[in-house]
């Protein structure tokens, strides 16, 4: 069911930029078109390219925002999210918590 939705209608998450668009919906309550435009502007691409896997994969790698395949020395998880914060210009609660833990002494 979930896979069918992903194939037929989904943006593709980390395969593309779906997680970034979704993050803007969550962070700023943006409707889909606004969230896509916001992310596309930040990545300096056309909104149509947001779901172009191989094109945005290189951008993600370059900006350290996490790619879906396993690649050593390419951030995933927390470091990727901290880079996403910078690119999208938002604060992510889990990253802030991580920073507090690192800096508390």
């Amino acid at each position, binding site marked *: *069911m*979930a*896979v*069918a*939705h*992903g*194939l*037929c*209608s*989904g*943006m*593709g*998450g*980390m*395969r*593309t930029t*779906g*997680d970034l*668009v*979704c*993050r803007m*919906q*969550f*962070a*700023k*309550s*943006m*409707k*889909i078109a606004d*969230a896509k435009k916001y992310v596309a502007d930040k990545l300096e691409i056309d*909104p*149509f390219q947001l*779901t172009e896997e191989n094109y945005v994969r290189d951008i993600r790698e370059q900006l350290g*925002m*996490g790619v*879906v395949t396993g690649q050593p020395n390419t951030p*995933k*998880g*927390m470091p*990727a*999210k901290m880079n*996403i914060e910078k690119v999208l210009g938002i*604060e*992510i*609660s*889990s*990253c*802030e*918590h*991580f920073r*507090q833990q690192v800096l508390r002494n």
Partner: protein
Amino acid sequence: MVVDYVTRMGDGRRVRLTKEQIMSDIVAGMSDGVDAACVPELSQDELDHICEVVCDQSKITSIEAGKEVVLSKDAGAIKFNQDNGGSGNAMPCMGRLEGILVYERAFGFDSMELAWMDYSVKPVKSIINCETANYEQMALMTTIPLIMGAMPNLGLYYAPDGPHPNPTDLMREFKIEESMASSEAAAEQLIKDIHYTCQEIEKVGCEGYNFDTVASAGDAEFYATLKGIEDYRKMNPNAYIECGMSAENVLGIHGQMEYDGKILGGMYPHEQVKVVEKAGANIFGAVVNTNTSKSFAWNVARSAVITKECVKTAKIPVHANMGMGVGGIPMCELPPVDITGRAAKILIDIANIDGI
């Protein structure tokens, strides 16, 4: 020669209908939705488009490139472990972290939630320290938005699971005032439990919370959830809050529960979303129920007309609930793939949903 098209009934059975029958069902389904939710009709062009999608005989029908939407998920990765009663795959070896990473890196999901097997606020409250410790670890490894999630499930606060008498039983005994008092008392307890749960997840930098299957026990549950969202929003202005409903209209079990001066019982999605917005949620999960005795064409047209008005009214993004038995999807254990894509395409093209 009469040409017929293979489509489905609301219980998932294959059925052959002519284009005329399909269009007749589309018009009837839309009219039923208009009557139920008091929303404007679809245009002839929109009805024709629905017919075109239903009649498309491809196995997979998908959205046009560029019109993709984002996906959010209820029940996290626990479906991997559950039995078929929860649409699960009974894979006891699949841990929750592995499940979440499968959704992130194999399924290409856009967001995910950490959910406990007993997926309600009340049982989660008891093990919240376990959940927060797990979340903290999982947040290090995941990249997509990761929130917590559970159902408010006010039913667990009523006898025999909870201390409050069952309001529906009291109603049958014509103890109307006692019934309403019981709903109100249970709602207050749920508000406290939501507060406690959110307060604890805040301590580990949790990104947010998905309130799922809201109002399953009627208007008192919806009220408690809205108050809980309002409270959580005050705690963390940046929290990611999703509120997904359980049914298309809020059952007025109490009847006089209000939020923001509005009676909650009887609200349809376009009305629900306004109080959810007011409470402070970021994403609203709209539900339209599937009628198993009607065709997919009837159900999806009904779903489209009700959801369209919800999206039009909403200032926040609307994710249509499109699982088993909602959003035009048939009510069956294994929802057919051919219908999943068609239903989503129709809701994206006609209702302009922001996500699924």
